């Protein structure tokens, strides 16, 4: 019984980081209806950002978070102008392919530079022990930072003028333009935010787990599952969806072979898309 509760707690901790990763994806979808296939690459970039800054420049691991957020934001803006801007208003396939192409380039460069060797950033934090079960400090801090970033995003979107402009553009791009909001700049900013969030998620993941250049794929897939659970374009849903996924992984694994959780995850993913295309946790909207 204690094991199950421990699994639930762990699920929530990890799940919140999945949620953060998915937040980047869902924000971009919500604002411009683009599925960003550079998402996985952005997560990996966050991981290597931590590795390089912490190992080469000797910045304390958690101090890299703001740097990675800023860097991700700037890179995201550049990516928007390269791979998305020209294709807005064209069939969705085009942007899928252009972001996929950028993903190939990034992963290709990463592989050429680092191979697929293993990288680990040792972070030692006190952990919390509860009976036989231990919750690693890195997981707890990652969940806490995720909550903080998600909270900051909430404050930005709901309590700053620029953030409200992002929501306005998401809601009705033409009306936003007519209200004097420079929508193209807001789109590039949103893309930057999405990439920054993915990078931050990658950075936090890298404090918990070793990684390789190819780790992004798995997290990108998880982000898809999370966005489906939470509803595409719904930031609050992404967090809830992430935690739900973490719970499924932690909880279901206690009752069946762990290798089956992946089957459950993806079957659920497809089923949710078919039955609740706006996500299980999507709150009724007007």
């Amino acid at each position, binding site marked *: 019984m204690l094991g199950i509760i421990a699994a639930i707690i762990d699920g929530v901790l990890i799940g919140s980081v999945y949620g953060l990763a998915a937040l980047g994806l869902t924000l971009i979808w919500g604002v411009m209806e683009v599925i960003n296939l550079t998402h996985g690459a952005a997560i990996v970039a966050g991981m290597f950002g931590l590795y390089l800054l912490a190992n080469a420049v000797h910045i304390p691991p958690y101090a890299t978070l703001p740097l990675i957020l800023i860097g991700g934001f700037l890179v995201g803006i550049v990516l928007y102008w390269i791979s998305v801007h020209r294709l807005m208003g064209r069939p969705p396939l085009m942007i899928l392919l*252009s972001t996929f192409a950028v993903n190939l*380039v990034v992963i*290709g460069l990463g592989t050429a530079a680092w191979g697929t060797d293993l990288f680990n950033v040792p972070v030692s934090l006190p952990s919390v022990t509860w009976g036989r079960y231990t919750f690693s400090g890195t997981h707890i801090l990652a969940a806490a930072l995720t909550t903080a970033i998600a909270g900051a995003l909430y404050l930005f979107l709901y309590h700053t003028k620029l953030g409200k402009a992002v929501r306005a553009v998401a809601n009705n791009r033409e009306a936003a333009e007519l209200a004097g909001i420079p929508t193209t700049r807001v789109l590039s900013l949103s893309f930057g935010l999405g990439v920054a969030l993915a990078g931050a998620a990658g950075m936090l993941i890298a404090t918990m787990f070793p990684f390789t250049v190819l780790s992004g794929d798995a997290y990108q897939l998880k982000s898809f*599952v999370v966005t*489906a659970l939470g509803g595409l374009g719904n930031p609050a849903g992404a967090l809830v969806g992430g935690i739900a996924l973490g719970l499924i992984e932690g909880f279901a694994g206690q009752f069946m072979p762990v*290798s089956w959780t992946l089957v459950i995850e993806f079957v659920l*993913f*497809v089923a949710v898309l078919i039955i609740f*295309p706006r996500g299980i946790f999507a709150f009724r909207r007007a």
Partner: protein
Amino acid sequence: MSGKTTGTVAGEQRASLRRRPFFWIIAAVIAAFALAPAIGNNVELRESLLLATVYITLASNLNIMLGYAGYINFGSIVFFGLGGYTCVYLISAHGWPLAAAELAAGVAVSFLALVFGLGILRLRGAFFALATIGINEAVQAFVSNFEPWGGAAGLYLPTTIFKPLGGPMRALWVVYFLLVAVMGASLYLSYAVKSSKFGLGLIAIGQNEDAAVVLGVPAPLYKALAYSLSAFLPALAGGLYFFKSAFIQPSDAFDLNLSTEAMVIVMLGGRSTVTGAAIGAYLYEELRGYLLTSQTFSSFQLVISGALLLLIVLFVPGGLMGWIYGRWPRGKEVLE
């Protein structure tokens, strides 16, 4: 262009596919694929063309959903993989002959596709695209746990498996010719669909599904049929391909990258065109083959493919055929 109006009804009634030049163009392509390596027993060319046949098969069939009906299918490879598994399993565990195993694989996978299709084709746009990824991953995860199919360890075929086809040397030629046949069938299928009422309905769905439905196109049925139809030949190709490899494992059978490559090919050649899918596949295979075997580029082959794809998407969105039609509008009548 008013010259097009002059054909009589009776004339059109008799105008079968064989009357059009494109029929013979496909025949010529098949002949070239079959003969080029056979002359002089050029095995290396055969192996290179063999991958091209697989790519052309995948791309042509993907084109039915993606090009004609306008549905983004990220998981088209699931048919290829399931076909491979069914075929390899029936041969290794039940000793079926290749032909029977192939047929069973094609039929079973098409049926499964129909079932999947009826489920996920209610979705549109990005939701459909995501669901196709989900299906591929779910199937891969399932097969990895499915012990009769070897689970994660995969299935091996002993060398004796090539005996009925006259030993390994001949068997590989037989498999190659069969793959060329599957490729030819894919081209003809894709062409026949495009020239049929069914294809017209699909293209109408691809252009504007709501309008098509109002015009009477039974969209749900057509989409599910297209999905199922486009599963058959890739399943056969998968069966042959993994038979030849003598080994199949989930990560090779359900490799999402191959799905994406098929999409890239369709874009490269030009959506919704039979020729485009074929030429795109051939060019892509040659390019990747070159990059992979080039000492200079092999470390950067991903970067180069990515950059090239980006340039095409940004600057030549119509793909090769779009570009050709733009230069030479009459091309549409010859190269479908």
